[in-house]
């Protein structure tokens, strides 16, 4: 493959923070964004002031600031992960039905979520493993998946057993149907949509190597 057609943009797979930095860089300035619990929260560390991003937290706030420390900690000011946070100038508070109307009404530009699996057509599975003894807990995942204009997923491409989490059809219980638009993984960025899955860039491997790992037909950007 000549360097001109290569979509490999890094010598190595990306670590969690490098991936968070990449997602942050891709968020359009001025966007209203919800970052899911876990890995997606890291994205906030890499948003710049110039991007002028407003963060939404579904327990009832726009204009959420960084995690609170020391004297800033206030039990009445927490994020969806129940972590104490801070408010930025211009923040607003609202009740739960209004907060979910913000996402359900299509007002949020982007949400970033973790996932167990994403399907070829953008189905998302991220709330339940389906294990019979597991206590199910869904929170706001289904509302975020169906409500935001763009749903970005952040995950490792492979499970610990080396199986692709990007699949033809999800085997875990679904969170939303056809909702995911982009998948950021340690090995590649995928664009998902009705036309199938396109590889935008790869990290530490070639397009062909990604195609060997993922059990569905991939296209080059």
């Amino acid at each position, binding site marked *: 493959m000549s360097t001109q057609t290569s979509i490999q943009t890094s010598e190595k797979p990306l670590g969690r923070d490098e991936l968070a930095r990449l997602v942050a860089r891709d968020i359009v300035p001025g966007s209203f964004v919800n970052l899911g619990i876990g890995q997606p929260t890291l994205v906030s560390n890499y948003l710049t002031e110039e991007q002028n991003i407003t963060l939404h937290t579904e*327990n009832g706030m726009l204009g959420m600031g960084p995690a609170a420390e020391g004297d800033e900690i206030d039990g009445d000011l927490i994020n969806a992960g129940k972590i104490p946070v801070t408010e930025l100038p211009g923040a607003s508070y609202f009740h739960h039905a209004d907060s979910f109307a913000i996402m359900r009404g299509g007002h949020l530009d982007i949400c970033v979520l973790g996932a167990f699996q994403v399907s070829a057509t953008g189905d998302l599975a991220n709330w339940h493993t389906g294990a019979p003894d597991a206590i199910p807990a869904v929170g706001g995942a289904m509302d975020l998946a169906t409500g935001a204009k763009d749903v970005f997923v952040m995950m490792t491409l492979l499970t610990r057993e080396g199986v692709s989490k990007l699949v033809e059809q999800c085997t875990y219980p679904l969170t939303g149907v056809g909702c995911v638009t982009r998948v950021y993984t340690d090995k590649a960025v995928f664009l998902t949509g009705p036309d199938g899955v396109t590889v935008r860039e790869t990290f530490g491997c070639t397009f062909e190597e990604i195609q060997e790992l993922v059990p569905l037909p991939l296209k080059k950007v």
Partner: protein
Amino acid sequence: MLNFIDTVGEAVAGIKDGSTVMIGGFGNAGQPFELIDALMDCGAKDLTVVNNNAGQGDQGLALLIKEGRVRKMICSFPRQSDSWHFDAKFHAGEIELELVPQGNLAERIRAAGAGIGGFFTPTGYGTTLAEGKETRLLDGKWQVFETPIHADVALIKALKADGKGNLVYRKTARNFGPIMAAAAKHTIVQVSEIVPTGSLDPENVVTPGIYVNSVVRVDSADSNKKVA
């Protein structure tokens, strides 16, 4: 009819066995701990409780569940690192769970307060949580029919009430308070401060007093600073 009540015990005294009780709060923020403790002391049992979670640690709703007072939980996120009392009851088959996506939970509560008989929403379509529910293709999207959640009583926490029962809240502790106040037949509010009528800016009132039945002041200086 609005009443100002001296103690949390008197405020919850009318809650009967078998009631559906909405309890405000998201995690510990906005959770009316003193009212829940009073509900525990009053002995009401066989309760259906509506809350986002199913109790944390060894306080509030978690204790009510531990003591076997709750027959059924309607919530979106029961499983947490410190939800051991709910987990034990659930695995023992001693508590019923109706799991509801969080936005549906909020909107179903809102619908009850607004007199709406039900609504269609895309949330949950194609998932196990929509199984058996009516669906329609509306505005180009498959949507699921959801019904309101009514309650006999709501226990909520606000920062201040005035003499008309108008409420203001504090930061993200507002969460379910305003919609639960509207959805329940009888709304009991614990506040940190009761202020003279006219001293809240009408432009800033969040819950109008029409939704409030009982107000009790809870004297806990750190009530709004409980660590999440």
